[in-house]
């Protein structure tokens, strides 16, 4: 009977392709919107995710999310280093500045200041250059979005300069960092340089990145840091989720996207369901004939379920592939502009 079910399904090519198209399009609609929502929420914590070397983030006790921080004092850093179970702890600066390109085009940028000696906090994927070159004076690493903005349609090479708050800085590396929520370019430099680029305030340190000693539980260490210093200590994962939840609870994004996703879900389900329902209704006479011939109700239900499963699987596969192709096509743009000899998979940075 599987053969008959298959023939009934594929016998009318127009109906069969129509069913698959309806399911593929509905899947595309739903997965596309869900993907954008998840991607957007992921972006809110992207800079936390970029830090691969440290697993503990220490911040002011009242910090709610990544983009709004109260600076810590140098004393806080020393106190954290003194907590039992802390292997090492380094400062991290996160601020904003304004950069100007060679053609005078300017844009606000996110400036990340990495510990001068270890450069902990650099994104894990380096597209071009060596991150160690950041130790030189007036040097920065830029992300791909920043490079594309300031040097549109130009080959990706090192040594180009930008004006960063009246400092001429040289690009020594291009990094593949996760896109931030605000869609601004992200620049990386040494902690000491970052402070000089944005102008000195009384306290500058946004976060302290720390690592637990081997065998020390991260959650226990976080509690110990909080108890000892009064500061908030979270793992990167916890801080990432806290940031995502802040955006979910305090912005209209989830509602707007939620409505779109629900509409897509309802429309998709109705379109796909209605199409398959009509297909089954049109075949009712044939199923009736099969029943009269002696095919049991259970086998007829099995045939219908098999047909649904086939078109569902094919349609879903195509829909998901369309979504994946859409995002993949957008993702690959800058990589294709790298000089031919340098087009290779981005290397992972290991300090």
């Amino acid at each position, binding site marked *: 009977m599987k053969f*008959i079910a298959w023939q009934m399904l594929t016998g009318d090519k127009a109906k069969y392709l129509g069913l698959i198209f309806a399911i593929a399009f509905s899947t595309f609609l739903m997965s596309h919107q869900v993907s954008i929502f998840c991607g957007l929420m992921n972006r809110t914590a992207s800079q936390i995710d970029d830090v691969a070397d440290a697993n503990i983030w220490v911040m002011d006790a009242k910090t709610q999310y990544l983009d709004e921080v109260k600076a810590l004092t140098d004393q806080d850093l020393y106190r954290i280093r003194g907590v039992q179970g802390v292997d090492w702890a380094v400062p991290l600066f996160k601020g904003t500045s304004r950069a100007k390109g060679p053609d005078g085009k300017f844009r606000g940028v996110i400036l990340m200041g990495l510990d001068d000696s270890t450069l902990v906090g650099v994104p894990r994927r380096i597209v071009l250059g060596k991150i160690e070159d950041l130790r030189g004076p007036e040097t920065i690493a830029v992300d791909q979005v920043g490079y594309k903005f300031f040097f549109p349609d130009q080959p990706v090479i090192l040594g180009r300069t930008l004006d960063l708050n009246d400092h001429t800085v040289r690009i020594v590396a291009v990094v593949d960092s996760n896109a931030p929520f605000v869609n601004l370019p992200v620049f990386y430099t040494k902690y000491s340089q970052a402070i000089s680029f944005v102008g000195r305030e009384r306290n500058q340190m946004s976060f302290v990145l720390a690592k637990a000693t081997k065998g020390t539980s991260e959650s226990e260490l976080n509690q110990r840091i909080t108890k000892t210093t009064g500061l908030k200590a979270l793992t990167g994962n916890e801080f990432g989720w806290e940031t995502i939840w802040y955006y979910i609870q305090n912005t209209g994004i989830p509602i707007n996207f939620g409505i779109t996703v629900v509409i897509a879900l309802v429309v998709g389900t109705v379109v796909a369901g209605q199409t398959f329902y009509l297909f089954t209704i049109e075949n009712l006479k*044939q199923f*009736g*004939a099969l029943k*009269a011939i002696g095919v049991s109700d259970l086998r007829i239900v099995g045939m219908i379920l098999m047909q649904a499963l086939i078109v569902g699987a094919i349609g879903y596969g195509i829909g998901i592939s369309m979504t994946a192709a859409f995002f993949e096509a957008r993702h690959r743009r800058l990589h294709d502009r790298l000089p031919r000899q340098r087009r290779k998979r981005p290397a992972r940075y290991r300090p």
Partner: protein
Amino acid sequence: MNSQAVVCKNISKNFGSGEDEVKVLRGIDLEVPLGEMTFLVGPSGCGKTTLLSVIAGLLNPSQGDLHVLGTPLHAIKGAKAVEFRRINLGFVFQQFNLLPSLTAAENAAVPLLAANWNRKKAVEKAKTILDDLGIGSRANAYPNQLSGGQQQRVAFARALIHEPKLIVCDEPTSALDEHTGHHVMELLRKIAVRPERAVLVVTHDNRIFNFADRIAHMNDGHVTHIETNGGSH
């Protein structure tokens, strides 16, 4: 061996309930002998197709005893009824009801596929029967490539392929012109009527009445009289 393929005693069939209840069959007594072709005839709405559906086990009688090939069909339900139908009954429908996406041979093979036969063997057997029915050359054609008469012959092949003991036909000539209708009834009589098999035909097409061994006349849910080729009683 019992010489009656079907024995109906006081069969009633109602649809709906209360004020909306419709009594379609009102105490039918009928015997369909083996080795004969029996026609159920009567005006539209008299209950012919309902009686055929009850005899074929597609509908349960509301009341009465129904024995088909010696089995009390009124007492069996569910999977047993389905299996009984699959083994013992062959159907010919008014509009042929061939599956449009299957070839003539595949359509004829459906009862064997329902009995879990190997597809290749089932189709081979179907081709043999289609040969017997004179349309072997069209075995690989789809229903929409066949004439009405050819489609009806495929339907006959489907009804006969598993060698059932009772063949039920619902208005087999209503979609055919007079000449073709006459021809397919000749064919049905030739290939289907056997001493160990009964053929029950529902029709209101009086042009084919001369093919019947026995004609049961129905009106308003009753069998009013039965006519045999030897006379009425």
